[in-house]
């Protein structure tokens, strides 16, 4: 902060700082504090507000864990997001390694373009494409039937559809940080390890992954948070049996009309995401400053 003032002078520097403060207070802190306030109050008719029933309570939170269905959906969202994160990592890591260390520059560039172009289309349309591919009478089933891999069409939509749609939607958020960190690894180190007799698995475990761990942690955190907060993929590609927690929150706000309950649920999701960030960083033993690099 003192550096800002040194660089831009007290007038301009102070102005920038004030802008940032305004942003944080006005756009981040205030709405969340209002949500917190909402979540700690019961839902009341307008004429009860300010009356004797308008007291602070935690019943919106206890309701979440008291309701069997909601609790199950919440837990499923947690582990489902974890699964999306792991699946994305499993697909992306080899791809990122290939792009950074194996492919020619042209190959890597072509791959990057092929991955980025679909992201010019908006998320809803991209997800709709998956909806079409995975539908019961859709091309995937037709293809698998024609090559004789399945005897009857499979209902892909549901858990599988949500997983596939999300992995696809968030792959770049995982790819970029991992690719970036692997490309800074000196190739001679890989050759040295191989020259000393290390297997591919050992080279990755001892050299590549430790080097790329900040990138891996960043990608995992991004993907988990995006998955947990995702709405489009579960809404389009899911089935009644694969409901996502965001859909419940949406319902409280816009269909159930219970903003207080919705606020409580949303805050639980927020806390969950923050906890995952902290735990992931702890596991990978990186700090937030490394992630920002």
């Amino acid at each position, binding site marked *: 902060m003192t550096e800002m003032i040194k660089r831009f002078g007290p007038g301009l520097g102070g102005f920038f700082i004030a802008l940032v403060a305004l942003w944080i207070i006005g756009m981040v802190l205030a709405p969340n504090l209002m949500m917190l306030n909402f979540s700690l109050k019961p839902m009341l008719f307008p004429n009860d507000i300010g009356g004797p029933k308008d007291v602070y309570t935690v019943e919106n939170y206890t309701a979440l864990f008291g309701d069997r269905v909601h609790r199950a959906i919440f837990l499923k969202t947690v582990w489902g997001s974890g699964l999306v994160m792991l699946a994305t990592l499993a697909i992306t890591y080899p791809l990122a390694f290939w792009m950074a260390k194996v492919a020619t520059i042209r190959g890597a560039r072509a791959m990057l373009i092929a991955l980025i172009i679909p992201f010019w289309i908006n998320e809803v349309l991209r997800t709709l494409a998956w909806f079409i591919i995975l539908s019961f009478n859709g091309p995937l089933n037709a293809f698998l039937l024609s090559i004789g891999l399945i005897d009857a069409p499979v209902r892909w939509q549901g858990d599988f559809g949500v997983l596939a749609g999300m992995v696809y939607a968030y792959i770049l958020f995982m790819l970029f940080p991992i690719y970036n960190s692997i490309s800074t690894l000196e190739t001679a180190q890989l050759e040295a390890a191989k020259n000393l007799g*290390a297997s591919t698995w050992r080279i990755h475990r001892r*050299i590549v992954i*430790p*080097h790329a761990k900040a990138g891996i942690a960043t990608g995992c955190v991004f993907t988990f948070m995006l998955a947990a907060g995702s709405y489009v993929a579960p809404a389009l590609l899911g089935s009644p049996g694969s409901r996502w927690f965001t859909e419940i929150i949406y319902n409280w706000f816009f269909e159930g009309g219970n903003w207080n309950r919705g606020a409580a649920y949303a805050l639980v999701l927020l806390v969950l995401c923050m906890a995952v960030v902290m735990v992931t960083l702890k596991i990978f033993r990186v700090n937030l400053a490394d992630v920002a690099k």
Partner: protein
Amino acid sequence: MSHSVELIDVEQAFGDVKAVHHFSAHIAGGEFFSILGPSGCGKTTLLRLIAGFTEPTAGRVLIGDKDMAGIPADRRPTAMIFQSLALFPLMPVWENIAFGLEARGVPKAQRRKRAEELLELIALPGYGTRMVHELSGGQRQRVAIARALAVEPQVLLLDEPLSALDLKLRQHMRAELRALQKRTGVTFIYITHDQSEALAMSDRVAVMNAGVLQQIATPQELYANPATPFTARFVGETNGIIGTVRGLEAGLATLTTAEGRFTGRAGAGLEDGERASIFIRPEAMALSRIALPNSLSARAVSLEYEGASAMLRAVSEHGQELLATVPNRQLGEAPQAGEQIWLSFQPEEALILSEKGAAA
């Protein structure tokens, strides 16, 4: 005795660029063998062929009389020390050294013990738990060597490992490397573009230019009897004057040049009438104030004092630059800049080499 390395007509092409042409050499077990050549001449490429990072486009590589075709880098009895060292920065020094043993499934306690022994060997006892970035350049160098030696290779491949060090440390490490090689008996294949380094350390030196092998010889032989004009110019200082061969007799040849007629030893395969150059080492040049047989007239340009002797730079009337070593005891008679002098030499101390097929 450690393994020998045999290169038979090895060739490496990258697309249509040939980085190594028909390279053949036999490197004996336990030999300190250097490959010397200017930057970009294919030295690293050759070393990577031996290590197994690339397969030659033609020819064969034999290590310990075993054909290495199809055997990948992790299963060859070689260890390489990279131009950049390529130490693992996220592991402490001892894990770096023991990495090859870890890959071979040696239990931790044993690995640790072996690492400590090697740290003794490279005179860094107690440095095992340091991180790589906490070491000096010379210490890193030694750790890289220990890491390669830990796997008990038959052949150690060194790619200009001293190039990043300052002169003092480089000279010190040369002696250390040489001693280490003697002590371990491992075959060393050492790459360098520094001719004094190659001459000082090696049993034999291979000189390479633009992917083509020029000569394999002992350092003394290389200096006294270079086989090609390139080697003559690249190894040590020399005076080279181009001309045409006019007469060959009893191992001596006469060359007519713009500077006059000179007699010198004829190099192998020299033919009458062809383009050739005569090479005279600066220390073979004698300084005089009168014309002698085999002498060049020149004007002194400068005298650089080098301690044990001084280097006289002169230029002939036709613009040929000349070098002559002036011993200390003759410094009193050394010419002033601009003074007209004569430089002469004995025919046995000059070598005439064909310029055929060689870029002048």
